[in-house]
């Protein structure tokens, strides 16, 4: 009797191990067991989410897919944006590594998603990040914030990619499990799109980029599927990968040249599960098999075993399938960039993935069984028993400011709160200008980049994940994440065309967390179908929990829109006095899950705002018409923090104040002043309109039946001494200096 194999230490269950025995009809070799363990991990196989994720495909109609050149299942979705141009974009998580090693975890999170985009044949052109940290006051939060922000910044800055937006949130649930989600967008011509399939017997398998080391072994299987104990990091601690952005920069440049030269038959990046993933997926998608001589893999650490080489998640590596006749041209290009490239195998007709180590066969498996035939679990899930009590605990009982004096004090507290304060401390550490195509970035609410310098055609992107709404109702929360991003993109004048998502949730083995994930997926799939905007790719990150405490279920949703001319977008704040200010949309009595309830009362209960997709769509189309005709000076979507946050930031954008009165809106909508200010009802925007365009503007909105109200005027000297101020009837005068000090002081105060 031979010894028991260490499947459990590799993160496999007994049942999964027996499935491998069944597939092979024998004991797996150590390298084979290593491959199955990483490829059948939750991170790579989506075994707990697959049964639910199918909805994204099932709910994508043929019409919705008409712009898709590649969809779910590819490294990233590819969308036709016209004139022969395409963009590819995707968001991905790097949560667990970013808790252990915030700097490297976040840095390699950028590196990984950039290679996904590169693998589609695109030049990466911009990134965005969605970050969640623990309580802003907690002693460990600064460690994670400093590391993560510097990690995202250093990697993206060194790659020469502008960071054009994103979001930051703080909540105690993320204390031991921060979220680091990074989105990358790339640009390509239709004909340059690449595929990841090893076809054509005799074609060569070329590994290029950095050498393989011992970092990140088991990252996807052991680390990503481990909930952290409340006492801290796990004892069996696999190395977090270490990033080298310079190596990735030259990898990008050499890939772009390789694509242009037409010497790549197929390509895949190496990310989670490293060579195990690249070899098995390329071979599984091909028409034959693949043979690889593992001893040819250039190593940083010569002591690595075959199993370790197969599991290593060393960064900055790619694998290409190259026709033998193209090899010299391929190597000339990689050589020009001093990128190491090595032929490690070839495509075969055997139908098997065969890997040798100094002549001895150490892996001989059907590639599909590794890449695609992993276990699929329909995990039990159940609506938590506490859900009814949470829904019943509405904000109606919360105390409200009694008078003008209290409202004004509340305003300044809220605008300085962790939920609503300025993110400049973070975003000022990111290069937003490199490449010269950034038309909008933070503090704008959506990033806008030019794709075609000749026509100014481009894309707008927004990333949103309102975790409090999802905590109240995951189905609705996911839909609200979508409409928030949809609204932000719509406010640039872009037409939303595609969605990527990063679904962060707790342990799938806990029925309540599993229910939240299932509801998030159902909600997002439903809203995307209703909006006719397809999900084109993304990822799922599970086991985001510390001890028994799961993070707020946080679907981060990225919406991409297309602009014929990026120059049509206007800022989110006004730059001149004398313009009319309009509040577009209606406000309902919806305070549950709001920044106000949380920041003022530490309250999270009730039912999130009512979703209204038709209103969102007509708002977006009306604003698009106004922007196209040049009728508006500023457009600011209203979301977290409501009108209070929107007015404050619109004034601070260019230091021009406003006089605002809201009595008519209160009366029309049947709500009080507080609710108009801090309610987070959907389908609303704040718009500044030059006096000369007011009639045309109101005509456009009226013709479409979009409710709107003139609530004020911009004013650069509304304060008592003629200084810029925000003067809101019923609240009082707040000078912009006071507002700026409150808004901008919070993050520097906490993080230096």
């Amino acid at each position, binding site marked *: 009797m031979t010894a028991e194999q260490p499947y459990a230490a590799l993160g496999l269950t007994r049942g999964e191990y027996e499935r491998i025995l069944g597939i092979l009809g024998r004991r797996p070799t150590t390298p084979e067991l290593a491959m199955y363990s990483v490829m059948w991990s939750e991170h790579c196989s989506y075994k707990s989410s697959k049964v639910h994720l199918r909805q994204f495909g099932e709910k994508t109609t043929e019409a919705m897919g008409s712009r898709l050149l590649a969809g779910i299942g590819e490294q990233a979705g590819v969308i036709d944006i016209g004139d022969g141009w395409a963009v590819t974009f995707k968001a991905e998580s790097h949560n667990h590594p970013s808790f252990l090693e915030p700097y490297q975890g976040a840095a390699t999170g950028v590196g990984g998603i950039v290679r996904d985009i590169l693998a589609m044949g695109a030049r990466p052109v911009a990134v965005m990040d969605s970050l969640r940290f623990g309580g802003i006051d907690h002693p460990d939060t600064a460690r994670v914030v400093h590391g993560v922000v*510097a990690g995202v*910044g*250093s990697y993206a*800055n*060194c*790659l*020469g990619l502008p960071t054009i937006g994103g979001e930051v949130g703080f909540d105690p649930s993320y204390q031991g499990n921060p979220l680091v989600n990074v989105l990358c967008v790339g640009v390509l011509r239709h004909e340059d799109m690449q595929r990841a399939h090893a076809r054509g017997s005799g074609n060569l398998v070329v590994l290029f980029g950095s050498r393989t080391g011992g970092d990140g072994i088991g990252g996807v299987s052991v680390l990503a599927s481990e909930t952290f104990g409340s006492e801290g990091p796990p004892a069996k601690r696999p190395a977090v990968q270490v990033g*080298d*952005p*310079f*190596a990735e*920069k*030259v990898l990008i*440049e050499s890939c772009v040249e390789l694509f242009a030269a037409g010497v790549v038959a197929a390509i895949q990046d190496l990310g989670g599960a490293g060579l195990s993933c690249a070899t098995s997926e390329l071979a599984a998608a091909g028409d034959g098999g693949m043979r690889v001589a593992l001893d040819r893999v250039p190593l940083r650490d010569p002591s690595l075993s075959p199993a370790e080489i197969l599991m290593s998640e060393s960064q900055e590596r790619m694998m290409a399938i190259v026709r033998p006749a193209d090899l010299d041209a391929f190597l000339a290009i990689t050589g*020009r*960039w*001093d990128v190491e490239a090595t032929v490690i195998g070839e495509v075969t007709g055997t139908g098997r993935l065969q890997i040798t180590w100094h002549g001895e066969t150490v892996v001989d498996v059907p590639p599909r069984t590794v890449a695609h035939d992993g276990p699929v679990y329909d995990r039990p899930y159940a609506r938590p028993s506490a859900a009814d009590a949470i829904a019943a605990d509405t904000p109606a009982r919360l105390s409200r400011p009694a008078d003008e004096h209290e409202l004004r004090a509340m305003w300044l507290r809220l605008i300085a709160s962790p939920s609503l304060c300025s993110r400049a401390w973070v*975003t*000022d*550490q*990111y*290069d*937003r*200008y*490199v*490449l*010269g*195509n*950034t*038309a909008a970035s933070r503090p704008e609410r959506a990033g806008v980049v*030019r794709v075609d*310098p000749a026509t100014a055609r481009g894309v707008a992107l927004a990333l949103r994940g309102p975790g409090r709404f999802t905590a109240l109702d995951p189905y609705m929360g996911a839909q609200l994440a979508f409409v928030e991003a949809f609204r932000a993109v719509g406010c640039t004048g872009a037409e939303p065309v595609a969605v990527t998502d990063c679904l962060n949730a707790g342990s799938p083995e806990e029925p309540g967390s599993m229910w939240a994930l299932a509801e998030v997926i159902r909600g997002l799939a439903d809203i995307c179908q209703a909006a006719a905007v397809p999900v084109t790719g993304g990822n799922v990150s599970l086991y985001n929990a510390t001890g028994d405490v799961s993070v707020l279920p946080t679907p981060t949703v990225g919406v991409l829109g297309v602009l014929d001319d*990026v*120059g049509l977008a206007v800022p989110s704040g006004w730059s001149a006095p004398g313009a009319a200010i309009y509040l577009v949309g209606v406000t309902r009595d919806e305070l549950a899950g709001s920044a106000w309830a949380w920041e003022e009362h530490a309250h999270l209960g009730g039912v999130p705002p009512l979703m209204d997709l038709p209103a969102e769509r007509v708002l977006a189309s009306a604003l698009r018409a106004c922007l196209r005709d040049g009728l508006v000076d500023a457009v600011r979507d209203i979301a977290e923090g409501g009108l209070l946050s929107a007015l404050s930031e619109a004034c601070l954008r260019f230091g021009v104040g406003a006089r605002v009165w809201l009595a008519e809106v209160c009366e029309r909508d049947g709500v009080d002043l507080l609710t108009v200010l801090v309610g987070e009802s959907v389908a609303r925007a704040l718009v500044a309109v030059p006096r000369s365009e007011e009639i045309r503007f109101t005509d456009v909105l009226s013709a479409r039946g979009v409710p709107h109200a003139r609530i004020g005027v911009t004013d650069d000297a509304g304060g008592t001494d003629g200084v810029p101020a925000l003067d809101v009837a019923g609240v009082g005068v707040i000078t912009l200096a006071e507002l700026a000090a409150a808004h901008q002081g919070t993050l520097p105060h906490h993080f*230096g």
Partner: protein
Amino acid sequence: MRIGVVTFPGSLDDTDAARAVTLAGGEAVRLWHADADLHGVAAVILPGGFSYGDYLRCGAIARFAPVMTEVIRAARGGMPVLGICNGFQILCEAHLLPGALVRNDHRRFACLDQRLRIERTATAWTHSYEIGAEITIPLKNGEGAYVADEVTLDALAAEGRVVARYLGGNPNGSRRDIAGVCDPTGRIVGLMPHPEHAVEPGFGPSTDGLAFFTSALRRTGSQ
């Protein structure tokens, strides 16, 4: 007029610098780090980025690139050279300009819309500006604090070799708010902020940077 833009491995703003030259009306010629040939250009721009990863001192390796041998030779012969950000660091490492750029005093990378005052217009790259002109262009770096010994700083001031200074607060701890300096002839200029990111309406905080490039173009024949 042909202006060369060097690409080192790790250069990031080379495309932007070439676009700025084109928008200014010149012909941008891409030069390659490993190619010791300036291809007959009349001036050279060393762009921003992290040449060779800058894992050693910024610019320390780039100054030894084959193309730099020719750039240094031509610069000593009077060819105008503009080093932006990493290019400034390389010019200092190559001893074409005095001083050095060190880590920002707040120890963070900073990307800002920075106000500057142009203090010398008798250079190949700034003579299209009015003396004392206040401009706003991006500043983005982690190691952008200009340092030199007091004797050198006094000499730079006395000889009028400070090309631009920061306004509205010192963003990184640069000695005497220095944003850019030049050699005694005014042909070699090093600048930490990025004029090439402020050349097109709608992309960048202003178009204040364009005059760096038109300055170089107008210079032909007249100087």
